[in-house]
Each structure stands twice: as structure tokens, then as C-alpha cells.
């Protein structure tokens, strides 16, 4: 009896504290804060404090939540919560070096689909607000997702091929074990284009500059979020931050596995360090040096350049190079 309670508490701890909510909340916010700071420094500005996302979050929690008369209240309020919860659960599936809370439950293809749920929740929430701007934001978000999906799939297939050899695999634990035995996959020559493609996919999936057409504040008034205010908006902002963490740690698990000590706390710190570096490279640098693209340019970029990179990797991996 005692052991059952303890196990339940342990799993509850996984979900709520590490690597669940609290970890996602703190580290996700931190990543975004660092991102804003780095962008500011690259533009020769002082930049907001690193803790700025926390301030934003708590401020929004204290604001009034207005439900527009045209909105469907339940969907409008539930959508952000579902999106956040789904994303945190997704984070639980991603292994941290040897440690994995629940990573035996879903493989990389499942994760690919679970990534759609937060986006889907945001789209339904936006649609439920009834705003015409949300309608446009929704369509752009959707096209961005279509754009990102093809190269992302190719990257995953290439990884599966390299790890599995003839017995291709989608299994996360196999990928992790392979990297423990043979070193990080990024050292594998055929996967370097895939890693670059994945780095370019991260800002698209998180909706960061220059692929933030769906939430373009100057042209379509924040798109999907146009009618959100107060606490639901805070949850959306948090979801965005967690998404940055999820995607960077997904990258780390795919390409930078095998770096670690075996002590969970140290490994988690290493993961955080890797995530910070990845955020700076894939989000901040790109943000600071580009202007926002148009939606058809986003699509074209992903289906030509990024897909091309991923395809090179896939073909190289296929022929065992």
C-alpha cells in the first residue's frame, strides 16, 4: 500500500515538478527572457531584464479577462489550458540523457502529432473568439504548420534510419541508447543537414521571428490572440515559452544525446545549458537579423530550402553514408 502511494507521489512529482510543470514554467520563461536579452544586445540595446517574461506573466494574471460577446465562452477559456497541459505532457516524453520520466510511452512520430495539439488548441481558441483577425491568424498558423511538417517528418525519418539501420526505428529510447553508445548523432556526417533543418524548424514551430506571420502584431493585431486578455493570454504566453523549451530539448534529444553524466540533476542542468545555446542560435540570432516574412514566403522557404536540407540527409542516411 505504502509503495503504491509512494509511486503515485513520485509520478505526480514528475508531472508537477520535474520535468513537468514547474521545470517547464521556470526554464521556458528563462529561455524567452534570455532570447529577448540577446536580441536586444545584438541590436545594441540594453534590453529587458532576463526575468521580463515572469513579469509579463504575473501582470497578465492580474488583468481583467474580457469575453467578447461574439465568443463561445467555454472553448475560449478552455483552449489555452488544454494547449498548455498537452505541451507539458509532451515535455515529459522527451528523455533527458539516461533519465526519462515517461519516455517509454510515445515515439517520435507520436511526438510529432502531439506537437499539433497546442497549435490546434490555439487555433480553436482563436476561432472561438469570433474575431476576423483571428480568422486570418488561424489560416496563417495552419499554413505555417503545413510548411514545417514536411521537413520535420523528413528529419525524423532520417534519424530513424541512421539509428535503426535496416531495422528502422521510431523509438525514442533506441535513439537515446544509440547515442549513449556511439556519441551524439550530430557527429554523424549524414545528419548534419538534418540538424540544420531542424534548427530552422524551431522558430517556425514556436512562431518566432521571422516566421511569426500568424501573430503579426502590426498587421493583423496579434492574429489568434487578438481578443484574448488577462489570465488566458498569460497562459498563451506561457505556452509559447514552454514550446521553446520543448522544441530545443527535442532537438537535444535527437541530435545531442549522449552528453551527460548519469546524475539527473547535473544532466538537467546540462540540458538547460544546451537549450539556452540552441535558443540563442536558432531563435535569437535569426530574430535579430531578419524582418518578418510573408506567409507564402514562409511556406516557400520551408518547402524548398529546409526540405531540401532534410532531403539530403534522408537520402544520405538511406544509402548509409
Amino acid at each position: 500500500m505504502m509503495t503504491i502511494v509512494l509511486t503515485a507521489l513520485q509520478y505526480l512529482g514528475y508531472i508537477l515538478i520535474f520535468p513537468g510543470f514547474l521545470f517547464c514554467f521556470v526554464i521556458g520563461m528563462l529561455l524567452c527572457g534570455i532570447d529577448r536579452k540577446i536580441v536586444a544586445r545584438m541590436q545594441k540595446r540594453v534590453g529587458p531584464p532576463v526575468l521580463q517574461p515572469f513579469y509579463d506573466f504575473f501582470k497578465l494574471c492580474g488583468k481583467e479577462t474580457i469575453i467578447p460577446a461574439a465568443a463561445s465562452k467555454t472553448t475560449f477559456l478552455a483552449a489555452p489550458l488544454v494547449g498548455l497541459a498537452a505541451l507539458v505532457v509532451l515535455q515529459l516524453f522527451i528523455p533527458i540523457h539516461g533519465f526519462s520520466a515517461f519516455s517509454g510511452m510515445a515515439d517520435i512520430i507520436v511526438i510529432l502529432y502531439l506537437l499539433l495539439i497546442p497549435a490546434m488548441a490555439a487555433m480553436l481558441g482563436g476561432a472561438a473568439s469570433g474575431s476576423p483577425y483571428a480568422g486570418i491568424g488561424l489560416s496563417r498558423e495552419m499554413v505555417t504548420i503545413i510548411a514545417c511538417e514536411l521537413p520535420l517528418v523528413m528529419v525524423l525519418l532520417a534519424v530513424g534510419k541512421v539509428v535503426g539501420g535496416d531495422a528502422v526505428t521510431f523509438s525514442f529510447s533506441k535513439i537515446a541508447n544509440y547515442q549513449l553508445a556511439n556519441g551524439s548523432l550530430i557527429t554523424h556526417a549524414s545528419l548534419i543537414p538534418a540538424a540544420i533543418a531542424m534548427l530552422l524548424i524551431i522558430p517556425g514551430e514556436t512562431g518566432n521571428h521571422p516566421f511569426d506571420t500568424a501573430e503579426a502584431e502590426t498587421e493583423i493585431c496579434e492574429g489568434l490572440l487578438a481578443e484574448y486578455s488577462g489570465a488566458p493570454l498569460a497562459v498563451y504566453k506561457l505556452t509559447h515559452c514552454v514550446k521553446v523549451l520543448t522544441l530545443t530539448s527535442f532537438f537535444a534529444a535527437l541530435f545531442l544525446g549522449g552528453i551527460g553524466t548519469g546524475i539527473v540533476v547535473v544532466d538537467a542542468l546540462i540540458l538547460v545549458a544546451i537549450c539556452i545555446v540552441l535558443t540563442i542560435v536558432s531563435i535569437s540570432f535569426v530574430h535579430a537579423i531578419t524582418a518578418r516574412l510573408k506567409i507564402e514566403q514562409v511556406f516557400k522557404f520551408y518547402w524548398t530550402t529546409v526540405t531540401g536540407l532534410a532531403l539530403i540527409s534522408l537520402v544520405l542516411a538511406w544509402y548509409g553514408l
Partner: protein
Amino acid sequence: MFKKLIEESTAKSPWLFHINAGSCNGCDIELVSVLTPRYDAERLGFKLTGTPRHADIVVVTGPVTKQSLPRVLRAISQVPEPRCIVTMGSCPQSGNVFRGSYSVAGPLSKYVPVDVDVAGCAPKPEAVIDGLVLATQILKEKRAKK
């Protein structure tokens, strides 16, 4: 504790929504220059938003023309509480050189309570930042009173 945290955060993360009520564009450019590397208001947490639903501070420029008045009031009403209204430049305060024109309905304070006036034609960025920081303090007080 959370109440305190939220109050502190309210002062540190003011998001702006800018309404042009018939401005000559001078103040608009000055407002943008506040966010440039030289003055960098983002270090204080300021951020321009695209919709009034996200805003804490509404910055109104221009003499409030008859055409724009209902739209200005509508947009201001859509900002969630606590909110702060800042007029920028002399126009929304007095009408400036447009005072007495048949098409000017201002000053803005006739219609909504204005919290901070930043005078000047156009005000210097330093003055704008000063006014906005004052507005954040008012925001914090409003939040505390709630």
C-alpha cells in the same frame, strides 16, 4: 504574496497601445523612437501591442478629430482594467494649432479620464519615457486599489 508579486509585475511590464486620433505623425514617430536602441524603453518592459485587449497603457496622439472620436472611445473601452490613458503631444490636451477647427472634437479629457499628459510638439523621447514611467506607477496604484 501573489498580490504583491502581481503589483510589482504590473509596474514592470507595461504594454502600450497606440491610437492615432488625427495626429500629424510627428508624435507617432517620436513614440517609435522611444523603442529604438538609443532610448530603448524595452529595458523598462515597455512593448507595443497590436490590440487593445493586451494593453495596459493607451497612448493617444493627435487632436481627436470628430471622425476619430467614436473609434478612439470604442478602442479605449476595449482595454481591460487596470488601464492608464496617456496623451502624447499638445494636441489631445489642448488642440494645439488645430484648436477651434470645425473638425476637432478634443480635448480628450472631455470624454475619458486622462491619467498622464505629456506635453510638447512633439515631446522629446526623454519626456515620453518620463510620462510612461509615471503611468506605470499609476497603474500599480490602480492595481493595488482593486
